[in-house]
């Protein structure tokens, strides 16, 4: 069922720029609240830098904890943007229109936050620069490019640069609209950012091609980013459970699953917060829900292969690790929650059309996926490290400290805050894209039924 709404350009501008031009009081209060959590996180980071990593729950042999879990999680969320906006653009799916920019922006902010995690985790953030980038010509010491920890910054840097530019390029026409609707200093700032945009056929043509071309270029980058994150774990042989060939696509598909779920969460919140009922409709969420069933089930296939092929090895250590993940407290409880919230509950729910078209249920299920996917990363990282290897002389388990918990929570608040700041300055739904959708909508008459149709170029 498609619930088409006919809108004029002025109406679209007014609706989608309402928050940019004049945000309500609650918006500022919400930003203030989130900023305070971000501040708490910053203080925790400062405290950690000052006191050292000893104040975290990290212990030999578990030297990667909450921060690295959270790093993998946010890298995962950052896969929403390109996956959705690029694939839907390339396949010319009509229902992409209200979700593209939101997902691209989510990519940029979650990627920024993700990239901060290993830097913070290093305990000496200022040193990470010369660990990762080859600039130390004076001493002649250079990063070892054979380490995946060097591939990671290269990939993240490429992806962050690319996706930020992607957002900026697609923003230019909308900046022209804001320029035309503002006065005074704001008008001058937006005029500068709009770079003299007029909307000639040439500019529009380039804008359309840019969408396709950048999508096509960013897709292989996005695949590489999470693959490389997985190789941070998988290329070594010392830790059980990590040295698996499937890790790269398994991480990517998991990332896409959690990322698209995050986009569902985000568009539903956008609809409620900005009263965009005419733009984000049940049909869009329904389509995302159907897409998620496919992605989720593909993820399950990879999960199955990863798990069964670990047992296939028939090696004591590997099997003991899986027994720990599945049967030992507290991992067994976390494993159960992960399987239920990550797949069984949401995907079963989405099978029903009524659920896919119910925004409250979609919000709950999409959040549920991300609870599951966070736990998945936790269960990949911690139990593997917590195993006693032949060379461990000292063997303790891991409990996150309040500092780590604060940082993890503040990461969520910071991403949300950054999104709110963005939505205060720029429209979260591309205006011209929605307008184009209006122009291309048509109908085909079959008997007495009018079927929604789309104009395409001959």
């Amino acid at each position, binding site marked *: 069922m498609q619930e088409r709404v006919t809108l*004029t*350009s*002025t109406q679209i*501008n007014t609706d989608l720029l309402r928050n940019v031009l004049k945000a309500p009081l609650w918006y500022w209060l919400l930003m203030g609240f989130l900023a305070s959590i971000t501040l708490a996180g910053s203080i925790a980071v400062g405290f950690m830098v000052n006191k050292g990593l000893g104040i975290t729950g990290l212990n030999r042999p578990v030297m990667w904890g909450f921060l690295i879990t959270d790093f993998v999680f946010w890298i995962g969320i950052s896969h929403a943007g390109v996956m959705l906006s690029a694939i839907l653009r390339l396949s010319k799916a009509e229902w992409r229109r209200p979700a593209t920019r939101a997902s691209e922006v989510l990519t940029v902010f979650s990627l920024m936050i993700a990239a901060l995690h290993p830097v913070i985790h290093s305990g000496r953030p200022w040193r990470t620069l010369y660990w990762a980038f*080859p600039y130390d010509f004076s001493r*002649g*010491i*250079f990063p*070892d*490019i*054979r*380490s995946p920890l*060097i*591939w990671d910054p*290269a*990939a993240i*840097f*490429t992806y962050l*640069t*690319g996706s930020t*530019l992607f957002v900026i*390029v697609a923003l*230019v*026409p909308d900046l022209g*609209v804001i320029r*035309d*609707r503002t006065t005074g200093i704001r008008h001058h700032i937006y*005029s500068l950012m709009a*770079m*003299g*945009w*007029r*909307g*000639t*056929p*040439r*500019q*529009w*043509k*380039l*804008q*359309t*091609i*840019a969408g396709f*071309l*950048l999508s096509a*270029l*960013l897709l*292989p*980058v996005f695949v*590489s980013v999470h693959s*490389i994150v997985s190789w941070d774990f998988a290329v070594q042989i010392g830790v059980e459970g990590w040295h698996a060939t499937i890790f790269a696509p398994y991480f990517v598909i998991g990332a896409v699953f959690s990322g698209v779920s995050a986009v569902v969460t985000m568009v539903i919140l956008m609809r409620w917060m900005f009263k965009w009922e005419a733009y984000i409709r049940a049909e869009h969420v329904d389509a995302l829900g159907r897409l998620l069933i496919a992605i989720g089930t593909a993820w399950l296939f990879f999960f199955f292969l990863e798990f069964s092929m670990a047992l296939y090895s028939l090696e004591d250590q590997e099997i003991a690790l899986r027994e720990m993940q599945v049967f030992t407290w507290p991992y067994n409880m976390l494993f159960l929650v992960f399987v239920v919230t990550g797949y069984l509950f949401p995907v079963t729910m989405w099978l029903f059309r009524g659920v896919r078209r119910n925004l409250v249920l979609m919000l709950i299920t999409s959040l549920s996926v991300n609870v599951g996917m966070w736990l998945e990363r936790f269960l990949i990282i911690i139990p593997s490290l917590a195993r006693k290897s032949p060379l461990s002389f000292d063997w303790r388990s891991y409990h996150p400290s309040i500092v780590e918990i604060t940082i993890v929570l503040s990461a969520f608040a910071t991403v949300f805050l950054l999104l709110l700041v963005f939505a205060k300055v720029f429209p979260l739904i591309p*205006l*011209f*894209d929605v*307008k*184009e959708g209006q*122009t291309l909508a048509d109908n085909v008459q079959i008997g007495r039924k009018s079927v929604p149709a789309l*104009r395409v*170029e001959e």
Partner: protein
Amino acid sequence: MVQILGLFKQAEVAANATEALQQAGYTNQQFELLTDHPYPDGAFGERVTKHRLYVFPFIGALLGFSVALLLTTATQAAYPMVTGGKPILGLPPMIIIAYEGTMLGAILFTVLGIFFESRIPNFKAGIYDPRITEGYIGITLDCATERVNAVEQVLRRAGAEDVLTKE
């Protein structure tokens, strides 16, 4: 020369106006359309856009690949330390960095290409009216001072809501 901008409320009327302009002796090379969202190619009988955007990513990719290859080779050669029994210049890790470099180069050059081919930034681009972003279609052309009135008449007769001029 004077710049003239005719503003049309409806796309159909604007499309007819381009025809009226052509009858008045102006080819589609001479007038320009201004719209608030992309229309299909040729919807207003406008001139076909030619561009070379596709060249940009290839140049960028080549540059990015070369730089990445140079960087990986040079840094490893400058600080040769064997790790994990792998060769100093091991191809697989070099390929990964080179791949990221290639893509980065391609993306950067594509974006440059988009701006270059879109002819932005350009703050003196010519006559404009904020009503365009509210859905009006603008038709703009340059003409000699003595012909301004005639063109204005053509545009108004074709259904322009407003006609603006700029020296």
